[in-house]
């Protein structure tokens, strides 16, 4: 077995404190959750103080920052709104991600109770729990998100890979060809500004002068 492979004896055992400091991940079955609790009301205050500047008071998103709430039943729409409530499969991911990476620019500064409270508030904003709800490590597994069952394992092998693995046409493949879409009409590609072009030319001249010296 793999366990019997020859070892080089490199590295050293991790201490319990080291593992505890870094092993912060949480799974859907609750593995990794710290003890703690937080309610919607406390979560609202924390969210307003730490999160709303980017995500909006109700998780609706400011400017281009991510929308965290709403979008229910929009996944088949022309422009789906994918939020915690409409798209995410697991509450554990909300806890884990806030805990590991938020607030943006000040990651891993929240205490477990604060993360529970903010998670509770986001669940409330997404109509998953009531206003008086308290989330804890004990009742965590009872909370389900509506889109959990709508994810499925990559199935390209069953359809796409077979359909595309055929010898394609090489000659006389179509009677005519027409352009159907054009990027220049949409016109959103960044351009080099006149200033930066001039800057680059000036630098090239300066470099040439330097070589002469």
């Amino acid at each position, binding site marked *: 077995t793999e366990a019997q492979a020859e070892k080089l004896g490199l590295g050293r055992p991790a201490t319990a404190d080291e593992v505890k400091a*870094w092993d912060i991940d949480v799974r859907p079955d609750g593995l990794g959750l710290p003890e703690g609790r937080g309610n919607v009301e406390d979560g609202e205050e924390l969210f307003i103080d730490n999160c709303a500047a980017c995500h909006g008071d109700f998780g609706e998103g400011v400017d281009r920052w991510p929308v965290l709430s709403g979008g229910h039943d929009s996944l088949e729409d022309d422009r789906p709104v994918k939020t915690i409530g409409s798209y*995410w499969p697991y509450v554990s*991911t909300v806890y884990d991600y806030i805990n590991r990476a938020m607030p943006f620019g000040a990651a891993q500064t929240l205490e477990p109770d604060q993360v529970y409270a903010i998670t509770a508030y986001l669940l409330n904003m997404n109509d998953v729990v009531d206003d008086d709800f308290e989330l804890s490590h004990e009742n965590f597994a009872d909370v389900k998100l509506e889109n959990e069952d709508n994810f499925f394992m990559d199935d390209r092998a069953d359809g796409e890979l077979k359909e595309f693995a055929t010898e394609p046409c090489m000659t006389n493949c179509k009677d005519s060809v027409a352009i159907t879409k054009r990027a220049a009409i*949409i*016109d959103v590609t960044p351009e080099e500004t006149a200033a930066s072009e001039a800057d680059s030319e000036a630098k090239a001249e300066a470099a040439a002068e330097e070589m002469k010296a």
Partner: protein
Amino acid sequence: MPVLFKGKKPSRRAFLKGAVAGGAGALTGGTALAAGEKVITELQPWMSESGAPVDAMPYGKPSAYEDHVKRRTVEWLTADPISSINFTPLHELDGIITPNGLAFERHHGGAADIEPGKHRLMINGLVETELVFTMDDLMRFPRENHVYFLECAANSGMEWRGSQLNGCQFTHGMIHNVMYTGVPLRLLLEEAGVKTAGKWLLAEGADSAAMTRSIPMEKAMDDCIVAFKMNGEALRPEQGYPVRLVVPGWEGNMWVKWLRRLEVGDKPWHHREETSKYTDLLANGKARRFTWEMDAKSVITNPSPQAPIKHGKGPTVITGVAWSGRGTVPRVDVTVDGGITWHKARISGPSLDKSMHRFYYEFDWDGKPLLLQSRAHDSTGYVQPTKDQLRKFRGVNSIYHNNGIQTWAVDEEGIAENVEIS
């Protein structure tokens, strides 16, 4: 990555002017050639004066005349430049190796600045012995060298609804291809001793996004590498210095940078980057998860919107790159008439597993408009599909994994545009 577009809308004329400006110095034939070109008949400074001394540039940079060869970003794609993306200038490159300074960047919490002496790699979870390695420890394991492409899952993602960005740097530039040096992940896991129940691996970064992805143990034990060099030198900070995960053929998000921890578990973690992100929403409202492999893909890099034909009719080189996350690319077809007739292109350079391949198709351009496409075949027999073929399976909202055939329309002046055709 959001695919909405907002913000500045530059004019097409200005963009095209910019694209052509690079060739302004080319001397046209005809005038005053009886006497000869001055660059030949007159003594040029570099023929007479000394050049730069060897100590002028201890770490060399490209010629100042290559200033335009650089990574570019598209501001409106993301909310801010910290969790954002930039693009490799594919239209300026040849061969298959991406220079380190031009390899595209994708960060979720900015590029971490890590002192290697303070970096640690931990292995924990379902192992016999939970371990901590220093960088010095990692350097003592047997190493391997491999050339692999790293393609962002969102490469070409802005093009699902139709032609949007005008240049292969923007439509296809979330990719780089370099030689990685590092330790097979398998050796590190064997050092810790994976328990029988250990079926999944969580890789985690040391940056402020603490990026995590779940990787099945079969892949981890197969060809993944814990890499500390790219193209012979240390990883660039923006590529994960001092150490990153290499997951050959699989979507770039899984190539965790600034790798600090590997946890062995019995189930996947379903973290943010494999639920909210990097899941592919289909038209029926259901979403694929764990779409790891990057399917066979290609793009013509020259001519292309940022690299118009400037030489007029006559001998013309069409070139581009092709790759597949499922193997090698033994064949690429090219069309100049929008797919009525296809020609087998010539692949030049090494054909390596899960690496970029360089192809060429030389032809005599008669000066008439062209509709250029390339079509990659991989070693599994898969043939790169059209965008419409993909949309039949997926709709237009899956964001990731757009490997559809790209079309460039070239006009009589040699100007190229990103288009779709019937």
